């Protein structure tokens, strides 16, 4: 069981997709009415996503918190002529991201309950997407990693392009082109790395070990190019300023669930990649480039927050806030201290919870009023008190209030960056901390205009408060925000050894290079 569990988690959603397909073929031809059939698709999808989540929780039972290396691994030859293996497993860096993914998916399905257009196809794309995302986090073989990395593009492209808003085609193509450009360069880098390592294997663990032990030496120049290729692919995904402009469009046009998944999980593939590839494989270059990356990260924090502040569209506001929050993650990654790396990893999870929940909240009122303009609301705390409470807590978690999740991540990143030995790190930390002020500005300002005051518009006076389905989707997110804020060690203990391994990989190579 232990060696199969990762594969089960990864492919269970795909099995669900197959089930939907068969169900549709079988029952769809029997003249069952569409509404009933759609309802069945929703429940089947919900069942598979919850089952996946349940199985993924079981990994916690097998996981040894004291180990740095991958666990629950499964390794079988796949394309023997090229040395490609089906090699999966999880370590401290990926375990929570896997669980985050399986946790976010049922919530996204609940958020999609009112989708009526081509429900079966929609749900199939959702499930395929889940398999793709999980595959990215569990792959320990570069070839496999790349495959999954690319697979996620396709369902997301269709989710935006078919089920999106008015400018969905533009947004979908922009999303696709931006990310494809990045990942093609990454493919080149992967192939180059494969040949440099003797053209025998795509094994990430092996290649990383070879590099850090000095068995595989790559000239500094080549390293730089490889680093850049990986970094570009990942930074587009993050997205790091100034590569972020696909994100607001994609978010605004995507259906609610699309935004939740995009913010909740897809963006983390970028920051995860930086931690998995750039840092351990090219420590010297990472170190050299750290001031540049931190500069871009800090610009992103401030710039994203300022632009978020002036958005008239709620979804765009949240999208730009993502740019700001992910800036924190990149800042933490390139500060190379234990606190900052732990904080970065934690912030990835936080952002998934908080921003996912923010998009959910926007989606709730969008379903009722079909507008995302802040100016179309005002005073809706009066008809929707329950919703307002949830929205408030979610916003507070996003702006980093202590005892909620966001604070832990931001604080660790900033204190880690402040004590980092990277040049100008203190300055970056101080500027980054300014983002903490700005996040309060844009979020509270939005809340003020949407929730409080007298109801200004007739249409808003009789809005329905949250129904059971929305509560079922939002309350787990709120609960996680509180749990992660009050008991962070529950999560951080598991990530510690793996994070330290990354940190050590950077440090030891630097020390050796210095000699």
């Amino acid at each position, binding site marked *: 069981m232990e060696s199969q569990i990762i594969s089960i988690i990864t492919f269970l959603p795909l099995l669900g997709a197959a089930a939907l397909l068969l169900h549709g073929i079988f029952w769809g031809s029997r003249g069952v009415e569409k509404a009933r059939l759609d309802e069945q698709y929703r429940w089947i999808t919900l069942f598979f996503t919850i089952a996946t989540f349940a199985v993924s929780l079981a990994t916690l039972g097998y996981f040894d918190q004291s180990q740095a290396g991958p666990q629950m691994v499964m390794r079988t030859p796949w394309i023997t002529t090229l040395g490609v293996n089906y090699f999966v497993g999880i370590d401290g860096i990926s375990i929570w991201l896997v669980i985050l993914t399986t946790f976010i998916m049922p919530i996204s399905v609940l958020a999609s309950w009112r989708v009526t257009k081509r429900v079966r196809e929609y749900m199939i794309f959702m499930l395929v997407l889940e398999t793709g995302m999980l595959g990215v986090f569990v792959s320990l073989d570069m070839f496999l990693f790349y495959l999954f990395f690319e697979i996620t593009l396709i369902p997301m492209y269709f989710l935006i392009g078919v089920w999106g808003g008015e400018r969905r085609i533009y947004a979908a193509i*922009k999303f696709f*082109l*931006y990310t494809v450009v990045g990942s093609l360069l990454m493919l080149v880098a992967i192939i180059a790395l494969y040949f440099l390592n003797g053209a025998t294997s795509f094994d990430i663990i092996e290649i990383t070990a070879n590099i850090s032990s000095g068995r595989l030496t790559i000239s500094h120049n080549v390293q730089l190019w490889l680093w850049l290729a990986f970094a570009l692919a990942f930074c587009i995904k993050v997205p790091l300023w*100034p590569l*972020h*402009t*696909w994100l607001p469009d994609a978010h605004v046009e995507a259906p609610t669930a699309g935004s939740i998944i995009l913010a909740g999980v897809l963006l983390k593939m970028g920051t995860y990649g930086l931690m998995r590839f750039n840092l351990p494989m090219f420590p010297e270059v990472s170190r050299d480039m750290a001031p540049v990356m931190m500069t871009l990260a800090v610009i992103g924090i401030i*710039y994203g927050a*300022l*632009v978020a*502040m*002036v*958005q008239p569209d709620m979804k765009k506001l949240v999208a730009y806030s993502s740019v700001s929050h992910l800036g924190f993650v990149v800042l933490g990654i390139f500060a190379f*201290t*234990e*606190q900052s790396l*732990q*904080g970065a990893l934690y912030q990835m999870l936080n952002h998934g919870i908080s921003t996912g929940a923010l998009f959910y909240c926007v989606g709730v009122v969008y379903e009722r009023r079909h507008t995302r303009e802040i100016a179309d609301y005002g*005073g809706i*705390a*009066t008809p929707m008190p329950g919703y*307002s409470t949830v929205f408030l807590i979610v916003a*507070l978690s996003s702006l980093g*209030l*202590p*005892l909620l999740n966001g*604070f*832990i991540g931001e*604080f*660790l990143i*900033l*204190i880690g960056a*402040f*004590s980092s030995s990277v040049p100008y790190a203190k300055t970056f*930390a*101080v500027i980054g*901390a*300014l983002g*903490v*002020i700005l996040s*309060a*500005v844009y979020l*509270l*300002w939005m*809340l*003020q205009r949407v*929730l*409080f*005051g*007298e109801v200004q518009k007739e249409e808003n006076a009789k809005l329905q408060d949250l129904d059971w389905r929305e509560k079922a989707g939002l309350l787990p997110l709120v609960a996680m925000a509180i749990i992660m804020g*009050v008991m*962070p*060690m529950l999560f*951080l203990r598991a990530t*510690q050894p793996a994070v330290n391994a990354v940190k050590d990989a950077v440090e030891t190579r630097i020390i050796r290079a210095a000699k």
Partner: protein
Amino acid sequence: MLKWITLAPLIGAIINGLLGKRLGERAVAIIACGSVGVSTVLAFTAFFTKLLPLPPDARRYTEHFFTWLSVGSFHADFAYLLDPLSGIYILFITGVGLLIHIYATGYMHGDPGFYRFFAYLNLFMFMMLTLVLADNLLLLFVGWEGVGLCSYLLIGYYIRKQEAGDAAKKAFIVNRIGDFGYMIAVFLTFTTFGTISFVAKDGVESIMTQAAAMPVEAFGAVGVLTGIALLFFVGATGKSAQIPLFVWLPDAMAGPTPVSALIHAATMVTAGVYLVVRCSAIFVKAPTALAVVAVIGAVTAILAATIGIAQNDIKKVLAYSTVSQLGYMFLACGVGAFTAAIFHVMTHAFFKALLFLGSGSVIHGMHEEQDIRKMGGLKKYMPITWATMAAGWLAICGIPLFSGFFSKDEILWRTFATESLPHGWGSVLWVVGALTALLTAFYMTRLMVMTFWGSERFGRSDAHHGHGDGHGGSHGKPHESPAVMWIPLAVLAVLSVVGGYVGVPPALSSLVGIHSENHFEHFLEPAIGTPDVVVHAAAGEVTATGQAAADSHASHDVGMERLFTGISIVIAFLGIGLGWVIFNRQPLKVMPRLLENKYYVDEFYGAAIVRPLVDVSRSFLWKIVDVKIIDGIVNGSAAAIAGLSGVLRHSQTGYARGYAAAILLGAIVVVGFFALR
């Protein structure tokens, strides 16, 4: 035991928050007051059974809850520290808090959000107690931000009132600016000391112990300790409403009056003072920071007092008064009189909570009227409110034997006699402080006279005073508040009178033949940094001779101290007299526009900071950088590629021989490249 002091109100908050709607007003009130009652009993028990029995120099009682955050060498536990400083704080927080909870059950009676109000108020108690009991800077920050959150929720409690929401948002954001300073200070503390704890842990000494071993930084220089101290002070200016971040507090009066009393007068706003005193070991090594604290405190005190003269909203007068009194406390900190600062925190908690609750009683009795121009002669209708508020009034004015007299006089005397600032500063700051005292007596007398004495101005509901909201006198006569409201007033009135006797200085107690030291000071001293280590010689050079300084302090002429007390008394009576004469005759005297409009500070911030920031973000960063430049490049290159592929399409001729030729050509180039290399 310590954890239950804080957890009791948290449990109350959770129960009322989740179930309060169904429980009904009575049950909610019982749960809210009961939980704070439990907390109060436990706080007193802990103070008298756990803390006092310990030997004076070792009064530190700790409780470890759980490890909150531990990454690498960074540790922040959920752990509490009870020492004389936090001990005094928990006593008056729970005591005053309980009284205000009881009062609020009457004040908020019939409000549809009754349960929500008490859930927030209980949550506030948890956060405030966590703030003062925290054994490290990060847990302190939890309380610090937590009280800020509750303040936000309670200022904006009337969710349909636009100005309440705006005020709440403003309070939170302005506080966040201060929090930025706090955060950086924590980073710097961590990198300097390797810990952020107030107690020794895992073989690492506490911040205080380490700071005490470090040399005093030169005056005028900004070393690391000065940096830490100044950054913490930035945080304090936010929470405790000092220049330049004081602007949120007057607006915060949009919240219900019990909130103003509890959060925006008695407890939360003194958190900044608490922070400075808690970190006094650092401040005493940073004379520059001390000087900044003293000057900001003094300037805030006098500035706010002048504004207070010209306000017509009863709560606004008290709000500026609070800002001004907080200025006194920082002045005390800045001159090294940390115990005097805490003494004033405590007496202020009594008399200012009393004054606010009294104003709430007035507002209640006047059917939500807050404009003192529309009051007058209320003494007759509300005798208890009048009598109790009068006690608060005399206390804040500094009339002898009332609590405020002892604490304010202590601050003024210590300011004059300070040895931790360069020569001459003390006298100047004393003049500012004394002037503020005069102004305080003056505007408080104005408030009292316009409210309780003179002709009744509430009958005529003419809109000629500006904001006539139409229901001035339409609800009938003013009435006294119910017992549930006046009993807390009475208790606070007693405390405002006698609360000062715990800290009578020897120079005064000896007058009546009692020869004892200042109990309050003596009790608190072990918990704070010794201020008299720093002695500024005339030339500005620093001599660190603790005992010698203490001796010289003691040898200061007792007569001198008595003389200054006399001056203080004269000032208090003078201020009251002036106020009485002017406003009894002319209650509606027009005040200077500049003061009435609060020196236009809000307008200035709006024009100088808020508006430019929003404009630049919208018209430059978003509309130009994002849309035009970055997206322009992206779309441009996409168009270029489309154009290029249009050209390249012509190579797709479909003729096999053409492709073959191209492949051959390519092969030759590649082979040639390797052959010739």
